[in-house]
């Protein structure tokens, strides 16, 4: 437990084969072993026919060790890395629909500018804000927009990558 009583969050990435059912295999494993996923993001990787998944999981060291081992045990999972302790770049994209009117719109835009976020849609009653950043940045913006009336939030979940070229990088591609 952290001092604030929550379980620590860890970031794990996995290179998986693009096969039907691979997401069900992975998410099913999390469900039946009782592991908590805070977020999960999936997309193409640099390797043909392989995807990369980024998991943010909640749990102590023992839990995270079990998560990585059980992920690795899945036949379609090729490589698993727990990158929590490493120097990483974490990013998440969020779309936030905020209630706006001609009076509040400029105030919202100011906040958006401070966060280097963008406005991607404006209508009479609402504005869609697009923001990219780590989880706490997205959370902060969300919180600041709350007083205007947040109608809908969509977040991609975190994706993460090591900074610099890691010693293991080449072998990862080979496996």
């Amino acid at each position, binding site marked *: 437990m952290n001092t604030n009583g929550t379980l620590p969050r860890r970031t794990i990435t996995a290179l*998986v*084969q693009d096969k*039907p*059912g691979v997401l*069900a*295999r992975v998410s*099913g*494993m999390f469900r*039946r072993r009782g592991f908590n996923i805070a977020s999960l993001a999936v997309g193409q990787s640099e390797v043909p026919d392989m995807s990369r998944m980024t998991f943010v999981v909640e749990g102590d060291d*023992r839990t995270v*060790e*079990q998560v990585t*081992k*059980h992920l*690795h*045990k*899945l*036949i*379609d*999972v*090729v*490589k698993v890395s727990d990158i929590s302790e490493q120097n990483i770049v974490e990013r998440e994209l969020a779309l936030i629909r905020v209630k706006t009117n001609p009076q509040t719109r400029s105030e919202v835009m100011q906040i958006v500018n401070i966060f280097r976020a963008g406005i991607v849609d404006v209508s009479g009653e609402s504005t869609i804000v697009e923001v990219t950043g780590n989880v706490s940045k997205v959370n902060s913006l969300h919180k600041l927009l709350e007083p205007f009336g947040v109608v809908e939030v969509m977040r991609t979940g975190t994706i993460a990558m090591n900074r610099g070229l890691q010693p293991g990088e080449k072998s990862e591609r080979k*496996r």
Partner: protein
Amino acid sequence: MTMQKTGGQIVCESLIREGVEVIFGLPGGAILPLYQTLPEYPQLRHILTRHEQGAAHAADGYARVTGKPGVCWATSGPGATNLVTGIATAQMDSVPMVIITGQVKRAAIGSDAFQEIDITGITLPITKHNYLVMDPADIARTIKEAFYIASSGRPGPVLVDIPRDVIEEYTDFEYPDEISLAGYKPKVEGHPAQIRRAAKLIGVAKKPVILAGHGVLLSGACDELRELAEKAQIPVVATLLGISSFPEDHFLYAGWPGMHGMAYASLTIDEADLIIALGMRFDDRITGDCSKFAPNAKVIHVDVDPSEIGKSVRVDVPIVGDLKHVLRQMNPLVEDATHVDWIQRIEELKAEHPSLAIRETDKLLPQYVIRELHRATNGEAIVVTGVGQHQMWAAQHYMFNEPRSLVSSGGAGSMGFEVPAALGAQVGRPDKVVWSVAGDGGFQMTMSELATLVENKLPVKFAILNNGRLGMVRQWQQAFYEQSYVATVFNGNPDFVKLAEAFGAFGIRVTDKGQVASAIAQAMEFDGPAVVDFVVEQEENVYPFIPSGTSVAEMIEEPKPERVNK
């Protein structure tokens, strides 16, 4: 050179190339075209079971006694779901199996077609891996992969689901020589530095004990285990599924521990200063409360599955690898030792806690039946059990000396395993006497396979320890629910003798202690399957008993035997 074959022919050709001799199964619409190719392949023996659960457990029993992957198949929908208990049983006990299921035609998948059930979805958590083959050109490679995955690393069941039109379609057939799976490379050799650390720990231990699991049998490491034990004079305790990996008549054997294991085996672990866990997974039936398990011991854990290491019990030296290879690496590094005091201490524990003593009585005790069975078979039978009290008594009172001579559902605890698994065991080992020690409850779950036994002239002998009860559950009701026997007493059991005769088997009833030996002899003399209905003491309990989630401190050894007779 390639030639055009149907998907069904490719399945059969592939099975033959994997060395398959027998398939347990039951046909239906979706798998019919595969069945219709069987006459072209007389080298593939098909055994028609009466229920798909029977086919799955039979394939499991076959695999456990031969070490080769068991193969079963069934049609789509209910045929496939009837396999599920058998698949889960194999998964829990790491038994290599390849399961083939027919599926509705590709175009019908997802439409709730007749007999369409998503069997790959259902078996996702209970298979080592599974496949839905949507192109006949993928069948050969998929089956090759299925056998490789099922039988390598930590073995397990692999299911291959094939739609009917994929079975019917023609395509080029060429069997791959080798396959490469990017995400599956089981570790074989152990890490040399960890092995050196382990050997060093063994060298300084005063009270070491080997905990031998199913992995010893699965990896074929019985000789290496014995070499290690004898070289450093280390006592060996087995898990339920590790029984028969080390000869029980060996002076270093110290029984099996846990919930219903021998008290001296549990106490040996409790007093040990080093646990050498080989191919076992610290099941809760062994550890009880993990925080109180082996409190004085360091732990060396060798397992081929890294996810088992550190799962339940903290480990000082983890070694991932195939046990046979790891022991071959480790044994030369282990120094000769004696541990005289420690072995003497275990002898004391055995004398102080005679867990295998049975009380002197004229009543027909189930434990006595097992003793007589051991005597009559010279300890050389393959014993198959169901799950419950009879399973514990069979494991306690039969002495297993030959590897793979006990076949029992450990992890899943599947009642009804005893009939079809014995069928599979007899098919796999026609040279052996196979005794199925059955409960009257479990027997009734799968007894329809008696017909399969008779039809195929498989001379399995059944010892039903008939207490007219779901005995283990009744024992828990007695211990924890003030003898409130809800739904554990059978008031309308069939006449098992007449039932056996109706199936065309031999049947005999035993109600008296004096009839036991002769009934066993008659059953064994009969040229075919035989059922002995032992009407045993109805409220006999299994002891010792360590209640779930507790420790050796809570062990109940009562009732204390009046006289020791073993």
